[in-house]
């Protein structure tokens, strides 16, 4: 997989010739990203789910953590199954809700994982992503 460095304070779009594609376990791309924030439709649904569930209220607008932990860091450690477990059962003592009754979250769990994994991998460089041009 091609990786590239993102300057911290680039003032404009980052020119990247090739979209970055992360490969999930079963050889289907987990997410595809171009120029740091143009993503495939599936990953975009993940972003919309993140937003609708107001995850930023605890994890911060850039997933870097506030009351809740940094997901940039957490997703480097958590397996997909562990991620799913936290979402579906919550960590109530720590203030993480159980999302099993939220249809949008349940239906888009994989997409949410793809989006957050892309953020954690440093391939998706902006929290606010856009859909790729077809």
């Amino acid at each position: 997989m091609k990786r590239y460095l993102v300057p911290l304070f680039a003032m404009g779009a980052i020119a990247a010739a090739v979209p970055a594609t992360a490969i999930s376990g079963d050889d289907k791309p987990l997410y595809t990203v171009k120029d740091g924030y143009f993503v495939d439709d599936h990953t975009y649904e993940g972003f919309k789910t993140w937003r609708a569930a107001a995850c930023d209220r605890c994890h911060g607008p850039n997933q870097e953590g506030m009351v809740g932990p940094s997901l940039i860091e957490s997703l480097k450690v958590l397996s997909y199954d562990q991620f799913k477990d936290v979402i579906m059962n919550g960590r109530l003592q720590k203030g993480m809700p159980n999302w099993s009754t939220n249809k949008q979250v349940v239906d888009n769990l994989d997409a949410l994982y793809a989006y957050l994994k892309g953020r954690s991998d440093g391939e998706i460089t902006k929290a606010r992503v856009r859909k790729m041009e077809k």
Partner: protein
Amino acid sequence: MNLGLKQKLAVSIACLCASGLASADAALDKAMADPGNWAQQAGDNYNQRYSELKQITDKNVDKLQVAWTFSTGVLRGHEGSPLVIGDMMYIHSAFPNNVFAVDLNTQEIVWKHMPKQDTAVIAQMCCDTVNRGLAYGDGKIFLQRADSVLEALDAKTGKVVWSAVNGDPKLGAVNTNSPHVFGDKVITGISGGEWGVRGYISAYDIKTGKMAWRAYSTGPDAEMLMDPDKTMAWADGKLAPVGKDSSLKTWQGDQWKTGGGTTWGWYSYDKDLNLLYYGTGNPSTWNPSQRPGDNKWSMTIFARDLNTGMAKWAYQMTPHDEWDYDGINEMILADIKVKGKDTKALVHFDRNGFAYTMDRVSGALLVAEKYDPAVNWATHVDMKTGRPQVVSKYSTAQNGPDVNTKGVCPAALGSKDQQPAAFHPKTGLFYVPTNHVCMDYEPYEVSYNAGQPFVGATLAMYPAPESHGGMGNFIAWDAGTGKIVWSNPEQFSVWSGALTTAGDVVFYGTLEGYLKAVRLSDGKELWKFKTPSGIIGNVFTYEHKGKQYVGVYSGIGGWAGIGMAAGLEKDSDGLGAVGGYRDLQKFTNLGGSLTVFAIP
């Protein structure tokens, strides 16, 4: 000083409770009359946060030292303050809302109350698990738990005397506010504007816990306790009856049912007028395009009759909110000169960046001016209509959903959030902890699901650009003319309630954890001390055995404290503010404690 009186008071309370003849009002009034006590969260019913105590003065405050400290054993944000009645201090914590009664003679814990609350509530709380403190009256201590249960505890034993369920936390109806004892009622509000909760304020009988009345912020007149002919509102330069369905007419269809207008601030009470004053919060959702209309009566100052709950007058500050400028901040009652005329005033520093001076008897709008020069979303308030004149560039409704409206000042947390200001009768001025923060705001479409977040906007916040670089100011304000008298820049928002004293000192805390004393006349810093954690609590003072003490909770949290990341994208247009609250982590860490100071 009033040692004898305080001791006598403690005894008399005990006797009154035993005989069961106490009027709550009398017991609390008596407690409040002795400046040695701190018997209400604001020290009084007027929200003035002014103390007659004057052992500590602007001449000797630099000698203040720590007298004693107390750990609440709870992390996360600690707002409000302890209460002091006679020889006892009542201390509370953030969730799970533990309460400790401490004997001031020995600093010994006389009783503890540890409520068992469902941890699911933590996730339903919007901005940290804060609790703004206890109330006292009728020999009881009142705790408004996070899970909406209002508890009355026996002040001597901590035993639960009665409890009332005030909302349904499963729907996001939780509580962060302090209950307030006014007359024979315990007044409490509700939180959950980000869950689409339809706001209300409730009055419970102090003796039995039976609900006396409940007034909704939105919906039909009868449920809002509004009289179409007698409830007045400011319109066309004068007061006029609100008319029939004044709320329903300003919402589309059933949207008022999930319309917000929650009531999580500080309330005040004028005994002579028998009026209760409070403000309502943001309309739900944060996406204005989804709720056309003025969304009444969100964002409103209400005056209500304490006995019946009927609204005497209402004034909506931010019709059709597009920025989350909750109107819940405290209503401070003070008799001051307004434009040269003696006035029974109500002064309110709104999140929207305007400070309002109202005639608290009639509800007439007298002054509305910006109390932070950075405020840009509106040019001014039209004094005839009472409506803010919105600047199109900063209108998230006009720019529409999925458009990021940039550079709006103030940010959603307002030029001031709930952190209460103080008044000083000698100067007639108000001393205000403020935020100096701006934001980018991008609304988006959301759908309501009961018990799930219902927000509908993404925000990024940063220090006000082209200013001193910090995120706060502490100011002195003339509410009679609408002008800043002096202003101290602060690195972070000032998220602590202020205290003024007859010793001509003003106290406030900072997010890095300093308790500061500044001179009344010009704000000159006289003393500071770094407490164990950032301060979002309110400074209070009391006297015990002839000595004056000043105390404050530390324990970082709340919207400011947990927003340790400013939310700016590292690769965005770098407003020179990357870091924002993130820098706070260099200065402070979590942990709730009380620090009490005295002059040795």
